[in-house]
């Protein structure tokens, strides 16, 4: 066993795992609010990343473009909910799926149309040198882990310790009862979309230097994000985050150490994980079946 290689793969896994965790969290937030999986989550993140690239191309410094992109994505997510999903919120599941697919292909093809399909370099603000020792973890991987942890901490504080965070949790948990408490449930759902889009934007900008920027960059990552969300249990934001890190580490370690798996079959791991977890525990590892007594 090569322990240094293992440690290297675990750290790299945590770095990409943080991205999966963000995507999974965004998926779970929208799922909690509207009971549907947002298939377009990855494409929204990809589009946001192109906006950041465009801003930098126009001369914005990295962190200015970073913050602007988050703000633009938030407004964009909010607008998507208000314009597209609010009118159909009572519609059956198939209508939702059709709209998600439409959103997916509109975002994908308009990104291709505006910015074309050639692969673009996306800069990292952290540099590419080694952070510790001889290539154990790169500065960008370290930065990815750092930014992800800060983002997750901020979200935790927001949901646990602010009134609007509590209102959003109430609206997602029991919309009818939340309305009877005077909470504007529709706006809480829209806010959830805005935040999910913003989280996706951060994930997209962080992973773009690794996978390169192009309209299909997020498809594999969304699959891992779904795997993370399912492993964690779609009802548990904390579970989604842990699931994200777990999927990242498993993917990297298995890809390196299991013979014949190689890089080619890495993506299969996500699907195997989804199926395996669902077989053993249909509500996901951290998905709670509600405790209640009557």
């Amino acid at each position, binding site marked *: 066993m090569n322990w240094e290689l293992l440690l290297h793969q675990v750290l790299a896994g945590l770095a990409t795992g943080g991205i999966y965790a963000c995507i999974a969290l965004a998926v779970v937030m929208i799922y909690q609010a509207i009971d549907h999986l947002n298939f377009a989550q990855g494409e929204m993140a990809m589009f946001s990343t192109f906006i950041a690239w465009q801003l930098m191309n126009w001369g914005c410094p990295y962190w200015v473009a970073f913050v602007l992109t988050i703000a633009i994505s938030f407004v964009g997510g909010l607008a998507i909910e208000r314009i597209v999903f609010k009118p159909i919120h009572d519609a059956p599941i198939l209508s939702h799926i059709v709209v998600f697919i439409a959103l997916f292909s509109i975002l994908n093809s308009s990104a291709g149309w505006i910015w074309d399909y050639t692969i673009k370099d996306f800069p990292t603000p952290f540099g590419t040198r080694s952070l510790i020792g001889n290539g154990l973890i790169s500065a960008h991987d370290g930065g990815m882990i750092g930014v992800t942890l800060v983002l997750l901490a901020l979200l935790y504080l927001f949901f646990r310790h602010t009134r609007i965070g*509590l209102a959003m949790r*109430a609206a997602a*948990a029991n919309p009818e009862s*939340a309305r*009877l*408490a*005077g909470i504007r*449930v529709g706006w809480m759902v829209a806010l959830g979309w805005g935040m999910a889009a913003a989280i996706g934007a951060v994930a997209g900008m962080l992973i773009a230097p690794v996978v390169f920027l192009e309209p299909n960059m997020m498809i594999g990552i969304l699959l891992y994000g779904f795997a993370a969300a399912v492993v964690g249990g779609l009802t548990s934001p904390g579970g989604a985050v842990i699931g994200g890190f777990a999927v990242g580490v498993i993917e990297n370690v298995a890809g390196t150490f299991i013979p014949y798996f190689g890089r080619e079959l890495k993506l299969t791991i996500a699907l195997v994980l989804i199926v395996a977890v669902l077989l053993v525990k249909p509500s996901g590892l951290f998905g709670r079946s509600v405790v209640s*007594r*009557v």
Partner: protein
Amino acid sequence: MSATLLEAKGLCAYYGATQALFGLDLAVEAGGITTLLGANGAGKTTALRALSGMVRVAGEIRFDGRPIAGRPVEQIVRLGIAHVPQGRGTFVRQTVEENLQIGAMTRHDHTEIATDIDRVYGYFPRLRERRRQQAGTLSGGEQQMLAVGRAMMLRPRLMLLDEPSFGLAPLIVQELFDILRALNREANVSILLVEQNASLALDLADHAYLIETGRLVIKGPSRDIRDDETVRRSYLGY
């Protein structure tokens, strides 16, 4: 004669194409307790849902003289109408205290909210003991207390209660009704109470309405209805 706080005229309610209320006239006096009685499926819950904007309605509803029919639930609640729904509407994953804070979500007077949470705990000491507990783990009676507490946090002028005694032991029901009486007297909260337990409701309320299949059967002072042998025998079953 006291002023009318809530008044409905010719109130009709619809679930999709099905009509469940057929031109109900109903009034709640300011500072009073009114009860709405009727058998299963009579339309009691529907009447409360119609008043707080949860179902499609036709007809007129006035709260404090203002027309409110057709307004969204959130707006009606913000006028000071707290609705304790059938089934209690507990936020099961949130703690007891978070449930109370949710009830105060429309308010911005932070120090007073803390005072009011304390006041609720004063009425329901058992909730104070369980303040950090997930609300879904409370007993039925405790959840009912929590639902009333959550409604109190709105500082409502009118409270709509849908079968608050449902599933509770007689002793706990008595306790709850004492608190409702105290709320009415001390905090000047007017009450519209839906109940299956007619004798208990008639004891508490000063006015009563009896409905059947979405239509009014009889109304009047509680005492008169309680003393009317035919009504009692044929509708209230005691």
